[in-house]
């Protein structure tokens, strides 16, 4: 889950970059940037949860 979390973080950034590079600065660009940020937040949550779960095993 840790690796998946960091991959989601990177994927979200790629979505944000793609929105900036490929779309015009109008409504769709903002929506794609928002979608990329949502993916990043999911990734951050997954990475954080994986560390809590990993610590549970080592306690």
């Amino acid at each position, binding site marked *: 889950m840790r690796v998946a979390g960091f991959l989601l973080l990177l994927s979200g950034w790629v979505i*944000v970059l793609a929105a900036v590079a490929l779309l015009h600065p109008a409504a769709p660009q903002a929506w794609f940037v928002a979608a990329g940020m949502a993916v990043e937040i999911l990734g951050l949550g997954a990475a954080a949860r994986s560390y809590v779960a990993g610590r549970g095993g080592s306690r």
Partner: protein
Amino acid sequence: MNPPVGTLSDTAAAVSMFSILLAPLALAGLALVNTGLGRSRSAAHAMLASLSVVGVAVLVYFVCGFSWQGYAGSPAHVFLAGGRPWNWIAAQPWFLRGIEWNGSAPSLIVLLQLFSVGLAALIPLGAGADRWRLASACVSTALLAGVMYPLFAHWAWAGGWLAQLGYVDAGGSGSIQAVGGLSALSIAWTLGPRRGKYTAEGMPAAIPAHNTVLVLFACFLAWIGWMGLNGAGAILLAGAPAGSIVLAAVNTSLAATGAGLAAAAITRFRFGRPDASLCANGWIGGLVASSAGCVFLAPAAAALTGLVAGALVVFSVEWLDVYLEIDDPGGAIPVHALGGLWGLLATGLFSRGGRIPLLPQIVGIGTLLGFVLPAIHGYHWVLDRIYPQRVSAEGERQGMDLHELGAGAYPEFVIHREDFGQR
């Protein structure tokens, strides 16, 4: 967008130089905060580590960091994608060659950046306090100062692709604070919590600051230093006129005081008494949040930014401690990572006359979370496998002072038996 530098008036150069010379006080303040919030048996180690990482950061930045960061208008590598140029890294010579040392804007930027990269390097020490080896901290700092910091700083400050989009960060909420704060998050994950911090059931134990007076005094030092950082950054990196230093100082002060008082009020309401450590963290969080928009916000907006930053720090300290089991003795993650990201967002939300668009600020935040954090965690993961970042269990029990330095910070203190007992 950063205006190309090189056209500073004598007044602007003098004001910038004066501001830059205040900046080391921010470093001193942060070093004292980190030391005071840690344990007494690691105090000397914390201060020596602060000096060491600042030294490593400055030297590595001198060797190669600035050559990759550059300044607005300096030679850079650019590629085309989506029909637009993407300026992604500078192409300056190494060892600061090519800079004219005559008070020119690039020379002042170099001086400011030496202190800025030192400040960024100090931030992760707060999260790794009491258990991060000195040598490991220095190696991690070399990568931060030599690669990650200059790369993001180029994007944000030196005409890079983020600056081209309209991203604004006058004093370094993102480039200095969030980069350092995300490095702190990564090192907290890599090291794990201090021994005795969590029970077998995962309940956190309070490990109080060993010198609260030091921590609170450091807030005053940091306040002065931050006014210098923000003022110089506004003139040299955001192209603000020299007179705007007054607004930068006012906004910095309002954000810090607002954040400190918000933390005091919230802890008074929640715990019955104001919590000194959290108030100090709130104060610094306000300074951090003030940086990005120090000359783009009206004073009322700066105060509001500070109030929110103070609240954010108090609640996120508890959230990280209890729910995410992240042991961050110095509060580096809530203060610098969250405070920095909030400062970037607030600049887009509250800028005077809506001059700063929100979308580039969000793209900047997305880049910090989606690129900078995984990259930093990647090199910490590799470093930890080559040479363990965390001190041995015996070393942690002894304290970093005795284990790594051979002598304690306070040799005349009476050592209580329970301080050295196994938790």
